[in-house]
């Protein structure tokens, strides 16, 4: 824990999730002041008191629904300080079959994974740019690397988010602001509860926490797969010609 780190603040959007908790814990252990923004305040408070008990430092909780885009400015203005790093973990996998049949369900998935996160991080980026420092981390997904029959609504939203982060990074390069895209692959969380996950491709939330910290604070990578094995795997999947891919029914 350095004296420098003591004065730094992390804001986690989606702090009641397993991945959000793990990232927040990793930063808290390093001595950061952690702030959680959550839709479900009770669940967020449970994580906040856990992190506070472990780190010996209070963890404030703010209410934020990523679909209520008109509330973003007020929420940001209500923070006592502009954070040094913002991590956006929110996401909603939805149900592909339901999203195909019900435009409202599809819209929810698109907004929760793309519109909301992009707009929020865009506002953060403006403030960071004005200040001249900051790190922005977006948790995207390997599902955005190529559309698949089984989850392309979610995948399309994540692809949009990945492209947004890429553009933001491009725009802010050389202006003191770091933009990191994280593609966790499979993670053992409540979102994947009950699914049969392939062991070598599946990370624990704590691995995501460590990977984010390494990339954002120690400068190790800008577009990262939490488990390295995903990088060659997705390279191959992206390279499969469309006429073959469409017959694979992944």
């Amino acid at each position, binding site marked *: 824990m350095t004296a420098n780190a003591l004065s730094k603040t992390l804001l986690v959007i989606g702090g009641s999730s397993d991945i959000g908790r793990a990232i927040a814990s990793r930063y808290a252990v390093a001595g950061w002041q952690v702030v959680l923004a959550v839709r479900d305040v*009770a*669940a967020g408070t449970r994580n906040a*008191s*856990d992190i506070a*008990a*472990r780190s010996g430092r209070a963890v404030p909780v703010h209410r934020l629904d990523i679909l209520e885009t008109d509330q973003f400015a007020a929420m940001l203005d209500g923070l006592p300080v502009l954070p040094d790093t913002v991590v956006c973990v929110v996401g909603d996998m939805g149900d592909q079959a339901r999203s195909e049949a019900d435009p409202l369900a599809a819209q929810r998935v698109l907004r929760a994974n793309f519109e909301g996160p992009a707009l929020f991080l865009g506002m953060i980026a403006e403030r960071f740019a004005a200040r001249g420092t900051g790190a922005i981390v977006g948790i995207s997904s390997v599902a955005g690397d190529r559309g698949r029959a089984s989850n392309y609504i979610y995948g399309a939203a994540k692809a949009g988010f990945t492209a947004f982060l890429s553009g933001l990074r491009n725009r802010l390069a050389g202006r003191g602001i770091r933009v990191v895209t994280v593609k966790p692959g499979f993670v053992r969380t*409540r979102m994947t*509860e009950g699914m049969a996950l392939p062991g070598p491709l599946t990370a624990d939330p704590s691995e995501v926490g460590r990977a984010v910290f390494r990339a954002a604070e120690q400068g190790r990578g800008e577009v990262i797969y939490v488990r390295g094995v995903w990088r060659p795997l997705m390279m191959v999947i992206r390279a499969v010609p469309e006429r073959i891919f469409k017959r694979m029914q992944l």
Partner: protein
Amino acid sequence: MTEFHGWGRYPRHDSALISPLAPGEVASLYDDADGRPRAGLIARGAGRAYGDAAIGDSATVVMRGLDRIRSFDRQTGRVTVEAGLLLADLIGVAMPAGWFPPVVPGTRFVTIGGMIAADVHGKNHHRAGGFGDHVETLTLALPDGQMVTCGPDHHPDLFRATIGGMGLTGMIVEASFTLVPIQTGWISQRTVVAPDLDRALAALRDAAEATYSVAWIDCLARGAALGRSLVYLGEHATPADLTARAGADRWPPAVGGRFTVPLDAPSMMLNRLSVGAFNALYYKRGARAAGQAMLVPWDRYFFPLDGIGDWNRLYGARGFVQYQCVLPMTAAAGTLADILERVSRAGHASFLAVLKQLGPAHGDLSFPMEGVTLALDLPVSARVLALLNDLDRLVVAAGGRLYLAKDARQSPATFEAGYPGRDRLRRLRHQIGAPGRLSSKLSTRLGI
């Protein structure tokens, strides 16, 4: 359905898997999604009970998602935690702040809820009692869907039945207890050599003042050497003790998983020859180091086997049983000699054999009683199971009992003879509507 087994990997049973993610969900699990009552539930922690205690008769509630520390007062050492928190996790947070759990079992990969349900004992039971003795309050989801907080002064009957109650009075959701202050993460250890059983028991008795005491026993030694042991006495080391060891880290980090058993060992690997040779070497080495105090990091003192990942696979694919009995002091010497004689004569190699002194316990179904406990690990086979039935008779005749958290095979009669508090627990189970709702493979097997 999911196949469950305990740490001994015997027996194996199918049970439905339920994973609550927040404390508020637990009480509602007594009914299914359509509001129909479920039958045969039991809570499961980290799966370190050896036998069938944490396999639900029809559904198993895995509590690992409830792993939050609710509060930790660094001034007083008082903590409130969710039941699914791992002991390893708690130690990792508490130790650098100068606190340690008042009682720990032989592995740190257990949950706090499991420690309460089994009323686990440590190497300090003779002085500190079981883990349950330190619980100040606990929150329980009762079979009628109510959440109740109980403690020594609050619903004491329910509390007493829940300490060591093997999850049969409700699902433990949260607990509060107070840690003990320590100055370093080291244990100052002294070894006493006991060339036979009588001297091993005497050494444990003489060590009543030691904070921690435990004996490793060579259960393959025979004749005059029957019961020869190394008795390890331990005290929390002070910073002054550390000066002897230059550069010692005051809070040494856990050394976990230096080596993991990658696959099931052939069951002949642990045979009389290999274990006998190991035991003889181990005894000689220990005897050489006897007398002078040495510093041992906390994890290697309390949790020596945690350094070997998945060590349960050493016993082969058929699994193993741990036989842990406690014998009242008066009968201990004679019955232990009889047990060791039979195990040694049968030639079954028990890699792990541990002797400890225990004090009285409080829970209706708590394992400890004033006396001596012996634990043996034995690979499962028809011959071993037959031998253990013989040992049960010796234990019952001596007025002893078997540890339910380790049990995979005792008979209802052995249980009835060993646990005088059983009927009080049964009455309480009736009062709270537990029969039929809360049951494990163990409770059904034993008729609890």
